[in-house]
């Protein structure tokens, strides 16, 4: 159900009130997604006079009707600090300039009449003010369930505030006459936006990379490519300010809430990873309409709590159910994986129905090491899943001259030529086993959970190797090219920033690289790939371009219109 407003027209004249259908004692009609409220539907307007007459046939001398109808409120969490006073706005009265509350207009009522409010649902995380500073009901010093007031002659403006994501409360607004008798009542659905993660089809707003130039590596070339392509959409973060912690994907996860009165509440989910980039969110991003929040216990942190292990698909339809905001996925199996508190928070948002993948086989253990999504406007679903794939890597290598020199792979991976890769039985066994035991299973999960067809998947050549000191876990041998960044620019172009695989003899000639050729050939035509040098800083650090980049995107503005059926 897209909307649950109940439209009552009340003709107010002198005289006794009559029953108006709903007795106002329960906020019926507030059930999630339902419309079986016993009250009129959206398109049914019931006009009621105090004499019991309907509006039909009323005379022109009758006073104008009061439309006792209220739209649902789709607000946002108010957990930022708009007045920059160091206090979370939820924990202080609404002030001038606060833009994360929703308004609910109460029309003028006749002299002597009053309005009664009652609320059920998550009262600990919903609050109604009768104007700034006048707490009415919900979460205050104690939970208040009802409130009665007399609006001013101009009416009243209630302020609705939420203290959490995906909050539901049912507000019942009852008009009472001079004698306290009920004239009319109307239920109002109060909801705060779920905390929503972006997907790769949304427009880029801003991109960050930690710029480093240290003895162990520099990403100056990669930064230069970002600057050139993204311009003002890109900011390099000074590495020395954050201990040269380059893994900015892992530290923060941009998310958002949207309200139907123009509110946008960004949340930066700050990982319990807590390495040198830990203060980045507070230092650089936190502010009005941007709050920083954390789920999980830092004392229990694992590599799975980094946000390369938290991704979201584009919109999908699965078994007839639309997921217009995509579906979240992360690495977790049983008790091992992303922290349970983080997972529970994401599950509780409902609209992006998370599913789990097995990443225990990886040294780092993140979902971005083997899969990503790219836009494909020409395909039925509008995207393609790029999936790491071992057989296509072997097929590609077998098509190359065995004596083809690979200078980047000799020292760093122990393979001087293509032939040396091909004759390494243990490497082949390892990768074939990974394909059979892990990647094929992951593919099946994607197909099932996202309703994919074979034509939605692009298999990208990938090989893995065991990492010493990592308990048998593996990481990309050929730089993990699906670990890429998708940037949709206002120009309409979609740029990809992809790890340069350096699978060639002449390191300066990307045009001679067969892996780049294969990767490019597999991409949808509309995409513009940039193969960037991430070798020393990222690849040898067991990550790639995506791991070293983070991005905000323009939110999808109408979750209440497209995703309410999931709540």
């Amino acid at each position: 159900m897209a909307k649950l407003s109940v439209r009552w027209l009340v003709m107010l004249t002198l005289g006794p009130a009559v029953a108006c259908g709903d007795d106002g004692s329960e906020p019926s009609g507030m059930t999630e997604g339902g419309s079986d409220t016993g009250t009129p539907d959206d398109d049914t307007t019931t006009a009621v006079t105090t004499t019991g007459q309907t509006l039909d046939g009323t005379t022109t001398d009758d006073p104008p009707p009061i439309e006792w109808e209220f739209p649902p409120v789709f607000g946002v969490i108010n957990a930022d600090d708009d007045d920059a006073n160091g206090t979370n706005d939820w924990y202080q009265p609404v002030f001038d300039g606060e833009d994360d509350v929703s308004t609910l207009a109460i029309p003028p009522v006749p002299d002597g009449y009053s309005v009664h409010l009652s609320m059920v649902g998550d009262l600990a995380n919903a609050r109604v003010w009768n104007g700034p500073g006048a707490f009415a009901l919900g979460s205050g010093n104690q939970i208040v369930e009802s409130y009665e007031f007399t609006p001013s002659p101009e009416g009243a403006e209630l302020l609705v505030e939420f203290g959490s994501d995906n909050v539901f409360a049912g507000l019942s607004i009852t008009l009472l006459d001079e004698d306290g008798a009920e004239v009319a009542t109307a239920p109002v659905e109060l909801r705060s936006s779920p905390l929503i993660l972006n997907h790769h089809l949304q427009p880029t707003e801003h991109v960050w990379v930690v710029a480093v130039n240290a003895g162990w590596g520099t990403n100056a070339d990669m930064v230069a490519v970002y600057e050139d392509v993204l311009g003002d959409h890109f900011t390099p973060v000074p590495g020395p300010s954050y201990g040269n912690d380059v893994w900015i994907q892992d530290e923060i996860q941009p998310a958002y809430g949207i309200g139907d009165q123009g509110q946008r509440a960004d949340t930066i989910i700050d990982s319990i990873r807590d390495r040198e980039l830990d203060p980045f969110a507070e230092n650089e991003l936190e502010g009005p309409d941007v709050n920083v929040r954390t789920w999980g216990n830092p004392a229990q942190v694992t590599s799975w709590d980094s946000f390369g292990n938290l991704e979201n698909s584009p919109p999908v339809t699965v078994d007839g159910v639309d997921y217009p905001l995509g579906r979240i996925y992360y690495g977790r199996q049983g008790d091992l994986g992303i922290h349970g508190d983080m997972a529970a928070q994401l599950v509780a948002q409902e609209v992006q129905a998370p599913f789990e993948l097995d990443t225990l086989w990886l040294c780092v253990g993140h979902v971005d090491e083997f899969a990503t999504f790219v836009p494909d406007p020409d395909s039925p679903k509008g995207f393609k899943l790029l999936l790491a794939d071992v057989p296509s890597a072997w097929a590609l290598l077998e098509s190359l001259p065995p004596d083809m020199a690979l200078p980047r792979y000799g020292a760093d991976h122990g393979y001087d030529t293509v032939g040396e890769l091909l004759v390494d039985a243990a490497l082949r066994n390892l990768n074939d086993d990974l394909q059979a035991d892990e990647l094929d299973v992951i593919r099946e999960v994607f197909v099932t959970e996202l309703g994919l067809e074979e034509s939605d998947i692009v298999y990208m050549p990938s090989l893995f190797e065991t990492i010493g000191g990592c308990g048998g876990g593996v990481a990309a041998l050929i730089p993990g090219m699906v670990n890429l960044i998708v940037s949709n620019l206002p120009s309409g172009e979609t740029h990809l920033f992809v790890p340069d695989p350096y699978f060639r003899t002449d390191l300066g000639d990307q045009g001679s690289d067969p892996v780049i050729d294969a990767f490019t050939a597999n991409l949808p035509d509309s995409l513009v790939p940039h193969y960037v040098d991430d070798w020393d800083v990222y690849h040898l650090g067991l990550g790639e371009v995506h791991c070293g980049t983070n991005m905000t995107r323009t939110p999808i503005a109408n979750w209440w219109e497209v995703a309410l059926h999931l709540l």
Partner: protein
Amino acid sequence: MTTSRNPTVSLLSTLVALALVGCAGGPDLEGPDLRSAPEAVTPAQAAEAATPASSADAPAAATAEPATVAVKEWRPWMEAQVDRLRREQPDTFDAVMALEARPTRAGLLRLTGPAVRNPDAAPILLYRLLSKGESTAVRAAIVEALPRTGGDFSAAAAELMALETAPEVREVLCAALQRAQAPHALEGLALGVADTAARVRAQALRSLGARPDGAQLSEAIIAALTDADPVVQQEAARASGNLALESATDALRAQLGASSPAVRLHALRALSRIDPAGTKALPELTTLRSDADPKVARLAERLATEG
């Protein structure tokens, strides 16, 4: 096991036997710190070396005759190289000595960058390993970088397996030995297979399974199929398959009933690599096709049904 009159193999057998003896009655994990190694290269280390290591802290392998571990005089070579590089390439020397071990995405430390991709970096890293009193994590990072230098580290890594105190570092030594030269690689890995720390034994088996000459330690690999640790069993199975050890068949078959799904999986897979036709005919395959673990069941199904 491949039998040979090769003195290297005999030496390896001796090492394995000594190490296993040490394992059986030895202490757990820790041994003398490198800073108390008898061939310390700085005055401070020489002074430290005068203090005998506590026998209670000695690693299993250290109970072997030290002289039998060092099959190449790598320390004099390292010192000569360091002297040369200090004179001729002081910038290179200083850069490698000062190179920061940076955190990988997994949290492990690594040394990366162009300074590492230089054969001359190998003796400098070894010198740094012995002289700077680095933390365990940095020592592991230094060891991890050794193969990526392209320089000579084989004998040093083998000897360090007997001297290094931290299992985390010995584990990485075993990984480095995958790319080391024979005979040193197998000498070091023989110690690794017999290490008191399961993580070291497991990594030694991974490295052996990835070396074409790993079958020279087939007896140790097969013995590890019944190791107390299931991860070690699993890696022993994987190595057996990679090396196509026919002599491991019975032990692998016995592991098809292991309680660990990973052991069952890798035992079955190893058997299929050693004897595809024979594995397809195994009566156990019927049970494994309905194994509680989906990976095992899927592999068994594929083996039973594919041509």
